[in-house]
């Protein structure tokens, strides 16, 4: 070791993270470790709880339903979020502030209030049902996967718009001018120049929204129905109704592993911006404004 031993710990800075580490250890690592031991050790060491996930005929159905819902929510969020974030980069500061507030208002509103609002909107006799009844269609989206998807898309939209806005606002628009000046069609210029530069923000948003969707509990539990449970509801049911702590732990670990795998896989497409790094980074893969 080249350094003298007493310099191995840069003490003052290191102490600063101690409270956060201690908190994480207590609220994250201890319960997580407990889940892990529950899932393989009840009462003797076994992998039965994991094999049961694949053979009980229920878990895979619910996982597939969850993955499908999360995919749709993510697609809806990017389709709505991308043009919105783009617009935010193109308007004046006052309008941008307004657009930002519109995105953030759901953030500031209690998640329960938002979900109960969706119940009122989607339930029988609510505005959506009444509207479709005008055309003779008694459509009730409350307690359906479609209703859950709509509500989740709204709740999760900020997680798409914010990283996208941060990525898009770092893109130097003079590159587009240069492309046009060299004879490129606007659409070609977008695809060849703008889109690749925005991809990091898109991936960050996709990862955030998708992983949050995978574990979303409140909206499916309130707006959805037990018949169309998503994985978080299944977890709730296994712990609170069935008292199957080992089975629930195994399911929780499985979902965690799937989420981590997806994040690390998707991370490769995000360049230097990612779900993990988005808050800290300015898009270094985008040209900086002061480039000549």
């Amino acid at each position, binding site marked *: 070791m080249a350094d003298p031993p007493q310099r191995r710990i840069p003490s003052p800075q290191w*102490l600063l993270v*101690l409270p956060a580490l201690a908190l994480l250890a*207590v609220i994250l690592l201890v319960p997580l470790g407990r889940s892990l031991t529950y899932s393989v050790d009840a009462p003797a060491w076994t992998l039965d709880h994991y094999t049961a996930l694949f053979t009980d005929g229920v878990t895979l159905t619910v996982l597939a339903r969850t993955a499908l819902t999360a995919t749709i929510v993510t697609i809806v969020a990017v389709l709505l979020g991308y043009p919105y974030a783009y617009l935010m980069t193109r308007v004046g500061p006052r309008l941008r502030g307004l657009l930002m507030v519109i995105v953030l208002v759901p953030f500031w509103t209690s998640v329960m209030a938002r979900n109960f609002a969706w119940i009122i909107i989607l339930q*029988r006799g609510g505005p959506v049902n009444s509207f479709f009844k005008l055309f003779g269609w008694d459509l009730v989206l409350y307690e359906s996967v479609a209703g859950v998807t709509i509500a989740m898309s709204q709740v999760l939209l900020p997680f798409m718009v914010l990283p996208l806005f941060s990525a898009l606002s770092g893109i130097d628009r003079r590159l587009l001018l240069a492309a046009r000046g060299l004879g490129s069609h606007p659409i070609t210029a977008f695809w060849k120049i703008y889109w690749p530069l925005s991809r990091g923000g898109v991936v960050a948003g996709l990862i955030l929204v998708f992983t949050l969707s995978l574990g979303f509990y409140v909206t499916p539990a309130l707006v959805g129905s037990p018949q169309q449970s998503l994985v978080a509801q*299944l977890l709730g049911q296994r712990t609170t109704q069935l008292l199957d702590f080992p089975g629930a732990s195994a399911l929780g670990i499985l979902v965690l592993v799937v989420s981590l795998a997806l994040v690390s896989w998707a991370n490769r497409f995000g360049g230097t911006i990612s779900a993990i790094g988005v808050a800290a980074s300015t898009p270094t893969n985008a040209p900086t404004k002061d480039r000549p």
Partner: protein
Amino acid sequence: MPTPRRALTVLSATMMTAVLAACGGQTAAVNPDGDVTLTFTAYGGAGQEAMINAYQKPYTAAHPNVTFTNTSPPDLAQVKAQVMSKNVTWDVVALAPAAAEQNCGTLFEELDFSGVDKTNLVEGTVGKCYIANWINANPIAYRTSAYPATAAPKTPADFFDLQKFPGKRGLLTNVQNGLLEYALLADGVAPDAMYPLDVDRALKKLDTIKSVTTFAPNVGALQQAVGANQVDVFVLPDSRLVPLLDAGTDLTICWDTTVTALNGFGVPKGSPKAEAARRFLETLVTTDDVEAISEALGTAPINKAAKPELSDNAKKVEVYGPVNTGKTVQQDVGWYASNFDAVTTKVNNWLVG
């Protein structure tokens, strides 16, 4: 001067101590004759309010050393977590008697009710690990405005007939509210040939209405759905029908075949106040307590000597009264006691699949 490493050691030691203290060991038993505060866990809402007035206040008046704190809901997973961590904070928990019997001695204390006079008590009132406090009738009922009087559902079979009686169904996911029994009745099983339950047959029948049914996780949620016109025809216990009727909801009850079930209380295993809790639970079957709770909630008395003075709305749900012109099926605690966990798992897996 402490190095950061030593600070970390001290910190971890402190944390470990805190964690160990929180996990606790077996707490010493509390003297039932001294000052005791029992933590009473029931279903919340108006029902628990009624229990406070009918059970707790008279008991504290007679036994000034015993007071109560109230909490809800009586989640079995909570009980399990408390028992596993040897940190039992609930002393009295409302439950399905079968849940207590199946987990007797593991999650729930064995209780000595040999001093209770059983002469006038309904069969099954006293178990090894529970005492029942009332009988719930879980009749099929519908919002009167949802069906014309000439074409309204009347029987369990009608409840499952989507052609003749369209509309949104409401059921509770708890097996103690007659979910499986009604499916079998509708499928042609005779009321007296119900047990042992053919669970697969019941679920197959339930499949036929699964897509038009709101499965509520608790009685409060279903009561709310009825009140908000979200379901048309449903199975709801009497104790929740009375508040709806009191609130002015127009309901019709289908007295054809009605499933009844006992509701009981147990004491989580390892409660340091188990003896005080047991003494309190004994009083729940006295005529005074039974009359008071029936008058408040419309539940059927567990003690045949009790003569509650029922309100008009409570009389409308009186399963052993003149209003019931049909039959009753009482849930078999014995059968459920050996099958409660397995059936609950099966029903829940069916539900989410």
